[in-house]
Structure formats: C-alpha cells, structure tokens
C-alpha cells in the first residue's frame, strides 16, 4: 500500500522498520526536486539522474542517523549536494580544466562536454545555441566547490550560513567561493553581454 498521505517523518520511521513502500513514497516525493538541483550542478541529465540515485541510496543507508525533528527534504538536499560534489570531482579531470581554460576547440570532444552538447532537445533552445554553449562552458569552468556554492546561492536561494554548513566551510570561505564563481562567470560571459 502506498502511503502518499503520510508525512516524511512517519515514512522514515516505517522505512526504518523495513517497509520499503514507505521509502518508495519518499523517493517519489523528492526525486524531481533533487534532479533539478543536480542538473544545475552537474550540467547534464545522465549525471543528474546518477546523483539522485546515489543520494537516495546514501539516504537509505543512513536513515537511522536522520533526526525525526529535522526536515527530511533538507537532509536529503544536503546529501544530494554532496553526491553532486563527489561526482563533479570525479568527472573533472585536469585535461578538461585545461581545455576549458584555453577555450580550445577540441574541448567539445571531451566526454563531459559531449554529454552536455548531445541531444539538444527543446528545453535547450531557450538560450540561442552558441550563447547557451558559452554559458554551459563557463559553468563547467568553475571548480566543484565554486559551482556548488553558486548554485546554492543563486538558484536555491540558500544563505551563506546554510551553504557553509553543507560544504563544511566557514562564512568567509563560503562567501569567497560564491564571489570567485561570479567573477569567473563575469570574465567568461561579460564580453557576450548585449549579444543575448
């Protein structure tokens, strides 16, 4: 029996007791939100799906560590941020960084970029092709911590304290990561302003 009408905390308690249907409700309730976050951070759909899957599995393994008085969505969100960070670190070989920094033509052949540039789909037509590609490249040029801090700040509207807590950084370092991210984006995209 699916318990869509039951709150997260109750479903967590049921899942801890071995009720997998209860965990299924949690997965179905939160997957889409996590996907959006992961897509912003990783820049492609396949990686975003991988992040959601890994975050849900990590959450399941650590369910006993979840404190009932906390918000399950927030707890899950933090796990997903850390999964995205891990994946970005894994996917960001030095080669890609060098290519992105150089703006080398061959960078488009990198698996990371190929995954992003493939299958344009209707959702990617909002920004005109070339410009959209520039924005994606600029986002990929950010370090994983910078990208995470920026996404959490700009798209998710998290405070510096919340971001710092998730990343394990103090306020100064967190703020600096957001600032560096925005500076890099301005360097890459500033010259294109007016062309959009």
């Amino acid at each position, binding site marked *: 029996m699916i318990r869509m009408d039951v709150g997260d905390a109750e479903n967590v308690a049921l899942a801890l007791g071995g009720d*997998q249907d209860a*965990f*299924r409700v949690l*997965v*179905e309730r939160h*997957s*889409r939100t996590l*996907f*959006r976050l992961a*897509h*912003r951070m990783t820049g*492609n*759909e396949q990686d*975003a*799906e991988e992040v*959601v*899957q890994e975050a*849900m*599995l990590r959450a*399941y393994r650590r369910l006993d560590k979840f404190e009932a008085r906390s918000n399950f969505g927030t707890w899950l969100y933090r796990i997903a941020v850390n999964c995205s960070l*891990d994946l970005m*670190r*894994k996917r960001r070989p030095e080669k890609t960084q060098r290519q992105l920094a150089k703006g080398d033509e061959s960078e488009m052949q990198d698996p990371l970029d190929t995954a992003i540039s493939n299958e344009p*789909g209707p*959702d*990617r037509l*909002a*920004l005109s092709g070339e*410009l*959209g590609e520039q*924005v*994606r490249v*600029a*986002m990929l040029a950010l370090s994983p*911590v910078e990208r995470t801090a920026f996404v959490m*700040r*700009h*798209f998710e509207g998290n405070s*510096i304290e919340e971001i710092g807590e998730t990343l*394990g*950084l*103090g*306020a*100064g*370092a967190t703020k*600096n*990561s*957001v*600032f560096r991210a*925005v*500076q890099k*984006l*301005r360097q890459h*995209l*500033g010259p*294109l*302003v*007016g062309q*959009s």
Partner: protein
Amino acid sequence: MKYTGGHLNEEQLLDYRYGDLAEAKATVEEHLHQCANCRASYESLESVLAMVEALPVADPGPHFEARMWNKIAPKLQRPRFDWSALTAWMSPKRLIAFGTVAALIVVAFFAGRISLKQNNVTPAAPQVADNANANAPGQVRERILLVAVGDHLDRAQSVLLEISNAEPGSKQNSEVDISAQQERAQEMLVSNRFYRQTAEHSGDNAVASVLDELEPVLLEIAHSPSKVSSSELEELQRGIESRGLMLKIRVLDSTVRNKEKPTTQHSATRGS
C-alpha cells in the same frame, strides 16, 4: 561586507544583489542612481546572472519517479559490492598516497634485511621469534603509519599555529597573506582523509576523531581568500580555538610518538 558610502566594489555589488546589504539598501540605491560607473557595473553583473539563469533545467520526463524507484529498489533488497564506488574512491591522489605507503613498507623490509646481514646476526631460536614479531608486516605497516601520522600532525600543528599567531597589519593594510598556509592545507587535505580512513578501518578511534575534526579546518583554510581581512582571520582563529584543536593535536602527536618509541628502543637493544 559593510557599505558606508562611495563607489561599490564587486563584492559589495554582489552582496547587494543577494540582499546582504539590507541595512544600507537605500544608500546603495541612491549611489547607483547617481553614479554611472557603479550602475554600469551592476547592470553588467545582472546581465551575466540573467544569462546563467536562462540556462534551462532538463525535464526528466513524466515517469521519472517510477524509473528512479525501479533503479533503486533492487539495490535496497540485496546490497552488493559497489565496484563503481571503489573505482571512484581510488582517485590518482589516493593511489599516490597508497603507493607512497607501499614503497615505504618495501624500503623498510629491505632495510631490515640489509641491517641483519651487516650485523652478521645468526639468531638463536628465541631471537628468530623475536625478529619475526618485530618484522611482522602488520607491525611494520603500523610503525610506518605512526611515523607518517606523526609527521602529518607536526605539519598540521605548524599551519594552525601560524594561523593562530597571525596578526593583521596596520589599519591601512589590515589584510593578512595566508597563501603559504593555504597551499600546505590544500596539500594536507588528501593525506588527512587517507590517514583518517585508515585509522577508522583499523579501529584507532582517537586518531580518526582528531583527524576528522582537523579536516573541516584544513578545508576552510584551503578555501579562504589568499589574503584575509582581520575579521576573516579572527573567524579562522576562532574555528581553531573553539574546537581546542591545537591541544588535541599536541596530545595525539605525543601519544603517537610514544607508540613509536618502544619499537625503536626494542630494535636498538637487539642491534647491540
């Protein structure tokens, strides 16, 4: 960052954009209204952020939730060994760390053999047992790890001490350059994680716990600006002080060094 009037730097513009200058909002708006340069800079910032914002988020499709559950459910029922996690864990930096430890073990092994030959030791039965104990791979590895952890703690102490004792300069130039400490903290992060995980696996909770507390501090130093303001420096210093980290590291360092001693003394006795 506070705003007390005048031209806005990039950091202040960003603070204003994200609502962190709420108390000075009216002053900032008035300045932006009057100053064409600051207004142009702010508009350029807004345009860049708008371009990033326009990047669409993919739609995972109508059956995404069901698809996700179908992927997750089998893994909940039957936990299997996750090779992808192992592959991910074995990053080049970790492999280098492993390689270093392995090389040290090999060097220690051959050094022991050469030393025995040079001393023309013909061990009697009890001594053979003694040697076997002293050179058991587990003990050699433990000894090398103790030495490595001891050195790591020394380096950590030195970085934390330098940060704790740093003082901002004159009022005009109150920034402190911590780039050297930052570089060392960055280097130490990988080895810190490696030693912590090793300690966790071997059940050495005291070492694991202190290294676990050290990690966020190293992370914070590594990600701070290379020149920090006096308030940022104070924040770093408070982070170190509030955890009582210096004392914990000193105590652990001394414990680790003491653990090293008996084996060293033991070897010396055997050699004479």
